[in-house]
């Protein structure tokens, strides 16, 4: 094969692309972006990562024992996660969980840019699915634009109605799936159809339906541009060492179209043939060749597009690739991960969060005790010469069954608890309050304030459960 024949073959390929390229221009917001869809390595990765959201839809249907495996039961203030039941009292673990994910977002961003935006974010994933449907129903971007401008006709209405119905179905299922995490899923479906679900459930589903439909159907990349705070936060967490989809301008510039009949050796332009395929496939409609920019969600679809063109015209792949600014600009070798302080700091905070959660989950005490010392009056002199203090005990029973418990107090000489033998029924999953009186003979009190320790204990399944809490015993001034 001669060089000339080769360039002719290349020529015919790019001619098509150039013919197409007049349709692609920058997204300034006044027009719907109709991104071209093409296959490729990153496209497949995107589908795989987006598949994480399948859990969102099917998660509620998994059962654990006789209940939903994961259920955030807000009316009963109980949060079931597999075998564990978490009550609001243990909610500090939620802040650690949030910390963990916030840091995960940070570390992912610091290392590889907006991975969350490009591959996992519900906004981009749902938009991707919505536009995929659009592509299937209405055809390629050019056809879609034509259809938009076309006068109303039966086929146009049929296509549009089908599309919107499908969008709405996805939106409604999204709404129901969300609520299903908070409401027994089988009851939910039954209640929804028998019109017996609560107004909150209907309202939430309506909000999510409307939100999904509008955000994924209409707002799309505009949500990333103007609504999303993460987009901005993630943007500033990127530094020169961050590996992000980058256009290699050393290689690409000066960009220029392939000239008909020009042999490869005489080429004065860079590798970029200015076919605008990278813009064509961009779901947010930005031009990666302008460098890093706020509109780029780093989904890497432009890498697929560019590679495909490069292969077709026989130039090396990777004109657009994952690369750090440092490596590209200064031609420096990227610093290994373990030498970057950010990685260590983020990893340390994340480990702290994980350790905290692990500690929390392993030390979930089934019985918890809170003690409130009565302040009005702080103490009372009884006619037998003893000092009496009044306490309100709050016994939290996290078990799924009621528990008979006994309360005791220790720590002071001559300490007596009134009705020490009284058995209290600690209601399951609830806080049970009980008033307790402690008495100490006046002459045995050595200080105005002395420590006492309350203990609550009960037997469950042959196991002794205990909870305790320190408090004080207050007497007259000395």
């Amino acid at each position, binding site marked *: 094969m001669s060089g000339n024949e080769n360039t002719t073959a290349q020529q015919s390929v790019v001619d098509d692309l150039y013919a197409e390229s007049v349709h692609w221009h920058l997204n300034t917001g006044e027009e719907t972006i109709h991104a071209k869809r093409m296959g490729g390595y990153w496209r497949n990765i995107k589908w795989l990562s987006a598949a994480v959201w399948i859990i969102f839809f099917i998660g509620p249907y998994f059962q654990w024992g006789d209940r939903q495996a994961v259920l955030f039961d807000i009316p009963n203030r109980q949060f079931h996660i597999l075998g564990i039941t978490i009550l609001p009292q243990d909610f500090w673990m939620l802040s650690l969980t949030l910390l963990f994910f916030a840091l995960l977002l940070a570390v992912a961003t610091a290392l590889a840019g907006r991975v969350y935006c490009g591959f996992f974010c519900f906004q981009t994933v749902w938009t991707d699915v919505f536009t995929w449907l659009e592509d299937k129903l209405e055809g390629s971007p050019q056809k879609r634009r034509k259809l938009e401008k076309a006068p109303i006709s039966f086929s146009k209405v049929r296509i549009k109605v089908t599309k919107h119905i499908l969008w709405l179905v996805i939106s409604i299922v999204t709404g129901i799936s969300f609520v299903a995490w908070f409401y027994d899923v089988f009851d939910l479906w039954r209640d929804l159809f028998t019109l017996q679900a609560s107004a909150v459930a209907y309202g939430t589903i309506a909000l999510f339906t409307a939100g999904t439909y509008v955000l994924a159907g209409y707002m799309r990349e505009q949500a990333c541009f103007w609504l999303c705070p993460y987009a901005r936060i993630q943007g500033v967490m990127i530094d020169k060492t961050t590996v992000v989809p980058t256009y290699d301008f050393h290689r690409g510039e000066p960009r220029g179209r392939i000239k008909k009949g020009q042999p490869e050796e005489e080429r004065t332009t860079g590798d970029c043939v200015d076919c605008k395929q990278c813009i064509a496939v961009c779901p947010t409609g930005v031009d990666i060749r302008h460098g890093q920019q706020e509109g780029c969600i780093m989904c890497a679809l432009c890498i697929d597009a560019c590679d495909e063109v490069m292969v077709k015209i026989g130039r090396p792949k990777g004109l657009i690739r994952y690369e750090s600014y440092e490596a590209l600009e200064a031609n420096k070798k990227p610093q290994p991960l373990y030498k970057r302080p950010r990685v260590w700091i983020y990893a340390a905070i994340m480990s702290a969060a994980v350790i905290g959660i692990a500690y929390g989950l392993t030390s979930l005490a089934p019985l918890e005790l809170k003690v409130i010392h009565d302040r*009005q*009056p702080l103490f*009372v002199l*009884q*006619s037998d*010469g003893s000092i*009496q203090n*009044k306490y309100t005990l709050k016994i939290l029973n996290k078990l799924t069954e009621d528990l008979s418990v006994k309360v005791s107090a220790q720590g002071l000489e001559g300490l007596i608890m009134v009705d020490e033998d009284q058995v209290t029924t600690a209601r399951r999953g609830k806080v049970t309050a009980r*008033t307790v*009186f402690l008495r100490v003979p006046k002459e045995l009190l050595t200080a105005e304030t002395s420590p006492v320790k309350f203990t609550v204990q009960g037997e469950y399944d042959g196991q002794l459960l205990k909870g305790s809490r320190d408090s004080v015993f207050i007497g007259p001034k000395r």
Partner: protein
Amino acid sequence: MADNNSFPGENNTGHVWDDNLRELTNPPPRWWMLAFWASVIWWVVYGVLYPMWPVGHESNKGLIGWTQMDEYIKGVDEVEAIRAEFETQIKGMSAAEILVAPGLSQYAVASAKVLYGDNCAPCHGGGGQGGPGYPVLADDDWLYGGTIENIQQTITMGRKGIMTAHGKILSDTEIDSLSKAIEAGDPMSDPNFTQKGCIACHGMDGKGMAVLGSANLTDGIYRFAPAEGESLLDSIKHTIKYGVNDATEPKSREAVMPKFGERLSADDIKKLAVYVHKFGGGQ
């Protein structure tokens, strides 16, 4: 401002500053106008449905006839409906029965908290800790008895303590000696206690009599706590000398508990009795 418009044909207002800074007549964004008109419509509809326009000193009634008062009454009815279940039970039960019924006594305590705050706390303190000149309710020293029935009766009928001013009957030395014995918690150690007739009310053992409401003089708990700066001994002397509620003696101690039987319903008093009983001194 330039008088001649240097940007003819443009949709500007003709106001031009600094050569090219000018005011345009672009319409507001569509969404903004939509929201604006939606707000206007909302306002009109609201004004028709709800009371909004002043009519004299009142306002128009509104098509759906909503009033804040109705809303309030509805809310009260809802609460009453929830309470009704307990209140009907309370009606048919004695205070003693309520005290031992677990769910009901909890309800009584929760419900009586407000009653106590309104009617009792000014004198007896928010937690029954008493106040200057007013008895503590949280201890187990009761002038008129500490059973639930006693407490119920005290609230219903009120109480008025009585003790003659002994300043005219006893000499200063006798009062002094008696006071010291009482302060020591052992009134019987002073022969005056028996001889001068103290035992008639305070009993042979000095422990008082609930029927009379006479104080227990042996337990170190005093019905009349010393005033600020006053010693306990002086306070005891004062009580002996001037008595309690003695009309002939202007310096006499005052000890009157008003009748609440007329102010509160019998059921409320039952609840209050339970509440007070549970302060920690109920018998």
